[in-house]
């Protein structure tokens, strides 16, 4: 894939819905000096899936597996858009036009920028559409 570097590996961690589990993950990663750049939790009444963006996903996955967590690595794309009204909507419109479906997304903002993690169903098409429209993406090395 030409745009390989733009595909970011996200950690997906299965968590039971009980207090302290999320904190436990954060503690383990913190002790190893791994910073969680972004995260989100999708949950229902008994379990959740923690999704985390980190600098060294493979190392983080191994550390968590050693602590018996169920961890998988999932491909996602990280976008950088301006932190103002309407900018997210314009990106989504681009993808919608290309018939690209987003399984899930989460966002975090810092100052003038907003960062959006998306999991599209068609990666090639999604990357092409974003590039064509000059949307800025993070490459793997930019994540710290």
């Amino acid at each position, binding site marked *: 894939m030409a745009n390989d570097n733009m595909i970011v590996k996200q950690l*997906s961690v*299965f968590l039971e819905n009980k207090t302290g589990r999320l904190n436990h993950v954060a503690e383990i990663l913190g002790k190893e000096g791994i910073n969680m750049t972004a995260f989100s939790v999708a949950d*229902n009444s008994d*379990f959740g899936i923690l999704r985390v963006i980190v600098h060294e996903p493979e190392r983080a996955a191994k550390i968590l*597996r050693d602590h*018996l*967590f*169920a961890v*998988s690595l999932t491909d996602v794309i990280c976008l950088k858009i301006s932190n103002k009204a309407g900018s997210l909507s314009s990106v989504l419109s681009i993808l919608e036009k290309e018939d690209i479906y987003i*399984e899930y997304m989460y966002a975090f903002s810092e100052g003038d920028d907003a960062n959006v993690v998306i999991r599209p169903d068609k990666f090639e098409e999604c990357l092409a559409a974003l590039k064509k429209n000059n949307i800025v993406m993070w490459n793997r090395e930019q994540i710290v």
Partner: protein
Amino acid sequence: MIWNETVECMDRQRLRDLQSVRLKRVVERVYHNCEPYRKRMQEAGVSPSDINGIEDIAKLPFTSKQDLRDYYPYGLLSSPLSEIVRIHASSGTTGKPIVVGLTRNDLSVWSEVGARCLTAFGLGKNDTVQVAYGYGLFTGGLGAHAAVENIGGTVIPISSGNTQKQILMMRDLGAKALACTPSYAMYLAEAMEASGYPREDFQLRVGVFGAEPWTEEMRRTIEAKLNIKAYDIYGLTEIMGPGVGYECECQHGTHLNEDHFFPEIVDPETGEPLPEGSHGELVFTTLTKEGMPLIRFRTHDLTALHYEKCKCGRTLVRMDKIMGRCDDMLIIRGVNVFPSQIESVLCEAEEFEPHFFITVDRVNNTDTFEVKVEVKPEYYKDDMKGMLELKKSITHKIQNVIGIMPDVKLVEPRSIERSEGKVKRVLDKRVFKN
């Protein structure tokens, strides 16, 4: 291989004659040496002279587990304490333990029946057997130990627990067989995988598993994980520990050593003997025991017996796998539920570990029924919909087998406790509410 062909392949009529002689003898023994038995027979209007053969056995009153508690510790002995050389006990989940006393002759019968089992599993004097049943009051360790010595094999009397040492010994001493509970075998299999030693380092080929009910699926799982042949050895503390019955190479039911332990199947509700082949509660009479003979002891185990000669050549009766215990059985929303049913569903579903934990409670006068299960690590996905579908599919599979809908909870890997002994897989909170 057959250890005692004379008995194990005996013509059934001759076997009945032998059982008749032995029954008369044991009834005389308890009547004259054990007050509670004499009283109970008198109340039932039966005397030893009414027992002329094995066909008269149904005239005798039953003995229950409760009797063993009521006459704790020595009230049911039919030998003076001076003749008792060994005590065993089972912990009993409620109240007093159950204590049994064995004479020197009882121990020799035990090692005889134990030898029949190990020989049927293909073990002999050249084999090393790692006995990982607990040694002590529990009958498993010392029972299996005596059986190995009797066939002239080499015992590693390691007892239960200390899994890393188990793996090391098994590897370094070249154990051919492992004797333990099937749930510990599962645990050990996982630990061996994790240890990183290649399978070629081990000579293990036979499993001698018993002391708790296990399913056909569990057998397949253990056989695949450990790459061995797994055999059932049946026993119960009250009757004789491991050695009451065993599987032959046909694995077509468990042969019972009925020249020593006479089995009947009765209706668990009414106590009426049931016709050959029926499912019901297993009842044992110890025909040769001296220390603490039990007459028509109700085991609470549910099974069926088959009398046709086995392909292995043995004529000894074959017992189906124990379906469950009347005690283990949970009644949830009016439906009978056996934990072993859930285990067999999990063993068949490739995405799930065979471990589970059931919690039953009563909320607003309705029983709640929660089953915690673990998805195998490689099947956890970053896909909420997929995970929910996995949960739904296992919910339906369990519901199909037991008839009521469980509330399935997916839990994190290895969060359900792995047991090193007997498994505790049920918490019934309703008992605290009555």
